[in-house]
């Protein structure tokens, strides 16, 4: 059996983390999720630096990225990823409460793969996250890794 790739969730709010994991639990993907608390940690994970220096190598199948985070926000992380030859093709999905045109435009300009606004209604939220997990974790074919 092929080892399934991780899903990286960048989210600073523990409640959002918990609810997201609850949503993914139904589709049995919760155990594949790695949670990072801000933009800096996200990049450390991806580049195997700092606390994540000793992790198993390999990129996640998708990065679910919140925009508003401490230290370094999601837009900056996205810019960093797209300008790093090693991370460039990583599928990135914005998962945010912001519906602001500014954020949408910035994200698409920087080459985001999808932009999902967290629905206020939990049922909708569960559906959205479930679909995201299935699509990006199972259906979508990731680009070959750049070594």
């Amino acid at each position, binding site marked *: 059996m092929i080892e399934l790739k991780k899903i990286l969730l960048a989210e600073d709010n523990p*409640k*959002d983390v918990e609810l997201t994991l609850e949503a993914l639990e139904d589709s049995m993907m919760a155990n594949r999720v790695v949670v990072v608390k801000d933009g800096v940690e996200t990049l450390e994970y991806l580049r195997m630096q700092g606390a994540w220096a000793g992790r198993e190598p390999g990129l996640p199948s998708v990065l679910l990225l919140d*925009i508003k985070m401490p230290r370094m926000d999601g837009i900056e992380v996205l810019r960093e990823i797209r300008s790093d030859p090693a991370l460039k093709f990583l599928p990135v999905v914005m998962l945010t*409460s912001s519906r*602001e045109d500014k954020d949408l435009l910035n994200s698409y300009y920087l080459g985001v793969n999808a932009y999902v606004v*967290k*629905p206020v209604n939990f049922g909708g939220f569960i559906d959205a996250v479930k679909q995201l997990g299935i699509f990006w974790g199972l259906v979508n074919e990731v680009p070959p890794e750049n070594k």
Partner: protein
Amino acid sequence: MSNFQFIKDLSIKNKILVIVMFTGFLAMAAGFVAIARIEIDNVRKVTRENLVLNAKLIGDYCVVPLVFGDKTQAGEALARINFLETVEEGYLYDDKGVLFARYPDSLDSVKPPVPGEESSLSFSKGIFIVQEPILFKGEKLGLIYLKANDSEIKSQIRRISLTFSLLAVVLLILSYILAWRMQKMVSAPIMHLAKLTGAISKNHDLSMQVEQHGNDEVGFLYEQFNNMLSQLLKREIERDKALDEIRDLNASLERKVAERTELLESANKELESFSYSVSHDLRAPLRHINGYLELLQKKNSEQLDEKGKHYISSIYEASNHMGHLIDDLLNFSRSGRAELKPDNIDMNKAVRDALMILDNDIKGRNIVWDINSLPFVHADYSMIRQVWVNLLGNAVKYTKFREVAYISVGWSEVNGEYVFFVKDNGAGFDSNYAQKLFGVFQRLHSNEEFEGTGIGLANVRQVIKRHGGRTWAEGEVDKGAVFYFTLPKKIGEKKDD
């Protein structure tokens, strides 16, 4: 008058010359005629008197020859007329009227004139004829008859004419010189004024003045001209001062505008980041509340009794309402800040799209729509569509207790403005509070009766105001309401040009 046109076109200098010389010539001619008349009369009178006197004198010389009948002596006496320049012929008659002697002798063959009895003097065809009886001691001895020419008068006339001609030439020359001087006196100051005016308008220098001139009309003109110049100068100085002030004001105004714009921009930025935070940070806890509520319902519902379940649904409703409030407030702040992108838009489409958005609320309702065909207007499409969403949404909402709801949409054109309205037969409102309707968070109905956030109409007013229009409403409790808004027509027409 056309006869004098050529005078009008003459320069003032030549006008004065012509007038002065003409007047001088006329005066001279009149003087000449008058003096010549008097002179000629005088000469004529003197000639006559002399003639009569000479006739009497020569008659006296002839007394003795007549008494003695001595014709030779009479001829000698008569020959004295030789000394009289003008007398050409002389005849002496005796007391019987018979010719006694004549002079000159060369006239012997000519028949002598027939004399009258009395003394007489006549003048005709340049010839004077005088006859004078010769008396001695009261007794008539004979008659003397003299014939004289008017050469004296003619030469007198020649002399006068010559004198006057000479005089006329001298006077004309004098009057020309005089007129030349006079025209200089009159036209020179005018030319001076004209040159100065030219210099003023060329150099734009109002500080120039004409030097004072005498007290005549030109002097008055100069004075008035100087007055006018100093008034113009005063006004120019005042204007320059005012312009400077305006410039200063403008500069300070621009400075102020720049300062204010900066302030406004930073305020706007703050507001933007504020509403950004609101959209992100206020929504997150709501989402969490909803999420945990749902988890509670899903995973722990067996442990909850009816009351517990009621609490959960109440919390759920409250947080949903909060969610709507946040969304509406964000919309409101966005429609206040977002740039207007006006275009020529079809109001029919805006209404159709609004109804599509309201589809969920309309579904299952019995509504009779009466929507008139609407015009094109010049406005921001998405903002105007939101206006229709709010107004039509309200109409749908407030007629929800009607078995059949009547909602009509129409328009008219008043004073260059489009007036649109949405009319319903819903709950209506107390018209005393009509103005409150358009305020933020202002509601005239309880949330229990009609759910809502109290932002929709505030949003309508804000959008319409930004388009240069007005909003108002009419209503009556339980009878229905009409909401109006206007859009200026002018902008729309500009687009068509």
